[in-house]
Each structure stands twice: as structure tokens, then as C-alpha cells.
């Protein structure tokens, strides 16, 4: 600058411009940090698998988070008060709708009012058949306390399921403890379970042994290249490696190939064979 004593208009303008730039830099920096912080929180939170069970028709979590405007119209139109808007401090993206099956499960309304109410498409109107909803997946999570796994007949979860015998079945299994009873194991099938949570709600235990989890937590994924021989065989309508030589098996000549089941008239070898009956 020319001299300190005489402040020319151009100096003044320069100073003003400098101050302006400094302020701008400060403002930009501050705003940048704030927005970035917010963005990071958001990114981290959306990277974690949401524990929340979303309403029917909800888009995949990342899309859902960018489409839902947190208006709560879906919450208002749910006739069973199933849905809640998450509050700050809940473990769910703040302001977004979710439900806790153990408190109030989804009643699977036929007309799906929550989806109709959503103005943004965060709940997809392509979903017109509530049976196609995939809010989550029920998992029989605790084999140690489930009464049916203990060999009793509870079956409550099975019987309340709106998609009974498709979403959940009772699988008959030998009870090795009594050795003479059956266990009827509640078994969920991912192709039919809507994730409504009625099973979780109605489990008779103090803590439900069956729970609805987000698919990301409930399901594994088999690798692209895995093939199941039996599925491939069915698809091909026959064995993929041609007719096989069937060698006879001694003692099982009248059976189908590979059928080694023990028949009622089967008598184990008498003591003296491999099992000598010796006791210490």
C-alpha cells in the first residue's frame, strides 16, 4: 500500500473486499463443517442396518431415507396405531415411521391405508396385495426357550399367523430327549412371511422367542455361483449326468437304489455279532 496516513477510496474498497472475503471464508468454513458433520452422521446411520421394521411397501432402506419426508401421514392413517414416528434418541433415523411388533404388530389391512397415505412414494404404491409385503422376516430366534422346541405344544405363533402354513409351518422332528415323542418346530419361510410381527406379538414367553428382523439382519445370501443339485435336476427334468449304473447292495436287493431305511421287521444282529452285549 502507498502510505498509512492517507486512506484512499481504493484502499478502503480493498480493505472492505478483504474483510468480505475473510467473512465469506469463515462462513463457508463453518457451514461446510456443520453440513459435513450432519452428512457424516446421516451416512453412518444409514449404513447401519436399520433395526426398525418399516411399514409395508417401504423402499429399500437407503431409498427410503431419501424419499420419506418424515410427515407422519402414514402414521395417522394406520387404523391400529401400529406405526410410530421415531424420535431423536430412538435407534431409528429421526422422524421416520417404524413399528415395534411386540407392542403393536401390523394387522395387514387389505386396503393398505398407510401406503395410500404416503405422498412421496417412500411407501411404494406398487404394493397392492398386502400378502406381498416384506416388512421384515420372522426368525425363531431362541431355540432354548421356545416351548415347541422343548417338546411342548404351544404353537401360538403358528396359529396367529395370517399366512398360516405358508409363512410359518410346524415341522415334525423326532424328540431325542424322550425318544418317543415328536417336536413340532415353528419354521418360517421367507417366500411367504410378510413380517407383520403378529407371531412376535403373541409369543407366550416373557421375551418373545420368535422375532421379526429386517431382512438385512435375518437373512444370509448364497453366492451367485452356488447350485443345488436337486434343484438343477428338477429344472432339467432329469439327472444332468445321464443314467447311472445301479449296483445291487447286499441285503437290500428289493429296495430302490439308495433306500437304506430300516424297516419294522428288521432285526439287529443277535449278541455275539459285532455287539457282544458285554458290560463292564
Amino acid at each position, binding site marked *: 500500500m502507498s502510505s498509512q496516513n492517507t486512506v484512499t477510496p481504493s484502499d478502503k474498497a480493498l480493505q472492505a473486499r478483504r474483510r468480505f472475503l475473510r*467473512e*465469506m471464508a*469463515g*462462513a*463457508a468454513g*463453518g*457451514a*461446510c463443517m*456443520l*453440513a*459435513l458433520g*450432519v*452428512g457424516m*452422521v*446421516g*451416512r453412518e*446411520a*444409514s449404513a447401519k442396518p436399520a433395526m426398525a421394521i418399516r411399514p409395508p411397501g417401504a423402499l429399500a432402506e*437407503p*431409498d427410503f*431415507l*431419501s*424419499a*420419506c*419426508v*418424515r*410427515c*407422519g*401421514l402414514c*402414521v*395417522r*392413517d394406520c387404523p391400529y396405531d401400529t406405526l*410410530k*414416528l*421415531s*424420535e*431423536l*434418541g*430412538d435407534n431409528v*433415523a*429421526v*422422524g421416520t415411521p417404524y413399528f415395534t411388533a411386540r407392542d403393536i404388530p401390523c394387522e395387514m389391512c387389505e386396503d393398505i391405508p398407510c401406503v395410500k*397415505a*404416503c*405422498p*412421496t*412414494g417412500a411407501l411404494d*404404491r406398487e404394493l397392492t396385495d398386502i400378502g406381498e409385503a416384506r416388512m421384515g422376516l420372522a426368525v425363531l430366534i431362541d431355540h432354548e426357550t421356545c416351548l415347541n422346541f422343548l417338546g411342548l405344544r404351544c404353537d401360538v405363533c403358528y396359529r396367529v399367523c395370517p399366512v398360516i402354513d405358508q409363512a410359518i409351518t410346524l415341522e415334525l422332528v423326532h424328540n431325542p430327549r424322550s425318544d418317543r415323542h415328536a417336536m413340532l418346530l415353528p419354521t418360517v419361510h421367507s417366500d411367504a412371511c410378510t413380517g407383520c410381527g403378529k407371531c412376535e406379538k403373541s409369543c407366550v414367553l416373557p421375551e418373545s422367542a420368535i422375532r421379526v428382523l429386517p431382512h438385512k439382519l435375518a437373512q444370509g445370501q448364497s453366492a451367485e455361483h452356488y447350485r443345488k443339485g436337486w434343484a438343477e435336476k428338477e429344472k432339467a427334468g432329469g439327472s444332468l449326468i445321464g443314467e447311472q449304473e445301479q449296483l445291487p447292495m447286499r441285503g437290500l436287493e428289493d429296495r430302490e437304489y439308495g433306500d437304506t431305511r430300516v424297516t419294522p421287521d428288521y432285526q439287529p444282529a443277535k449278541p455275539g455279532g459285532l455287539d457282544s452285549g458285554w458290560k463292564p
Partner: protein
Amino acid sequence: MNTAATTNNVATERSAKRSRASTQPGAEAVRVKGRLRANKWLLLRRISQFGILALFLVGPWFGWWIVKGNLSSSLTLGVLPLTDPYLLLQSFSAGQLPYQEALLGGGIVLAFYLLFGGRLFCSWVCPVNLVTDAAAWLRRRLNIKGGKTPSAYTRYWLLAFTLGASALTGSLAWEWVNPVSMLHRGLIFGFGLAWGVVLAVFLYDLLFASRGWCGHVCPVGAFYGLLGSGALIRVTADKRRACDDCMDCFNVCPEPQVIRPALKAVGQDHPLILDKDCTSCGRCIDVCGKDVFRLTTRFDRSES
């Protein structure tokens, strides 16, 4: 500088006036116009703010569903959709195209504020305004001075960065912390820790920055401000010749910098406040004992 050096008396008189004004702006107006007329616009504004809140609340409280939803998106009487265009903008940048209802609702809101003035939202609708007004009032009462106020450009940067962050994170970035939607949603759907965010805004305005939140940080206000840059409704200082420099209007205005060009003819001849940051709250009209200000349209440049 020059004036202060030459007329010392005037300066001291003025600063005395100013300090008086800073504790009780509008005292003269109350004397001249009466308590009611000196608070007319403030009362109307409070009626509007609480009225709108009540419309949202009579549903959940009494089951009279006039309006469902919240300020982010709502449905009035089952037919009128309204959606916050700033939220939609965040959604766009996160890569979503919402359904027609939301777009229509956003269009209606957009058209309204484009026409009448964006920051009408701030002073007549936004619930945080109640919080920051309370903080500003208490700050005047307790005579709290100082603090570090960020540049008024911060909000525009923040507005740009929230949209950038939305695009980057694929989420409505600002909605993770937005005190505006948090407060409104909290009042209607229940709070949680969101009280903390609202309290933080209150304390920030009270202790750290005078009118800091609304005037310098809030990107929602910045967005609506940009919308309203061509708006119809404006405040005019058409009787500015009557102004006696009591500074009351500067003291109550949440964006005092907008008054100077109109009142003091700095950089413009006409008495219209055209600055987009003016919230059209009408507080300056109330507190002026000389009735300098008036609400009018942007085409009315008359002066009396």
C-alpha cells in the same frame, strides 16, 4: 466518525436514546398509540403461529382431523396437499422423484411464498420463531451484549452444503438435525431428545449470537428468503421523514440490516424494504412511535 467529532452533544444524546431504546423498544409507541395498536402485528403474528399449530394439534388431541401430518408434508381436509419445497429439494438431490401429491403440495407452497414473500414462513408459520423471539426478548431484558455472531452468509453456504450433503449421502441430510421440523414434529408426534436441539437454538440466540439462528444459520430461512426475493408484500418506510432516530425498529427487527436502505436512503431512493431477508413480521410498524412504516406491495413506492 466526522459527525461524532463535530457534534459531540448530538452523539451523546443519541447514544442515551439508544441505550434507553435497547431496554424497552416500543415504549414510546405504547405511549402514543396505546398498548394494543403498538402490538398489533405481533398479536396477529402470534395468532397465526399458534393458530397454525392448533390446526395441526386438534387432530391428535381431540380427534378433529382438519390437518394431518406436519409442516414437512400435510393433508388438509383430506384434499389439500402441502409439502415443504426445501425438503423436496433435498429429496431431489438425494436422487428421488416423489409422487405427484408431494410435488403438487410442494408447488402450491412454492407458488404462495414466491408470490407473497418467502420469509412470511419464518415470521408467521415457523415454530422456531417463537423460540428465537423469546430468546431475543430475554436478551434485551437481561441486557446481554456481545457474543460471536457468524456472518449472515453462513445460511446460504449451509443451504448449498445441505443439498450437497444430501446428494453425497443419499439421505435428507438436514433432516437429521433440522430444529424447525424437529420442533414441529415433536409438538405433534412426541419429543424425545429433540428438546435438546430446540434448547440449543434458544441458548445460542440468548448467550452467543444475537438473532444468530434465524438471521445467520438456518438454511430453511435462507431457502424461503431466496424464494421471496420478488415477492409482492413488502414493508415500506413511507413516512421516513418523521423518523427521529430512536432506533427502536433496528432494535426489534430480526434482520436490522434490511431497514437502513429504505429508512436512510442508503443505496436506494424509494422507501420500500426490498431485501429478501425481511421477514415481513411487521414488528417495526408496531414499535415505531412516529408511524413511519406500513405494509404494502412492492409496486407502491410512494412517500409521504
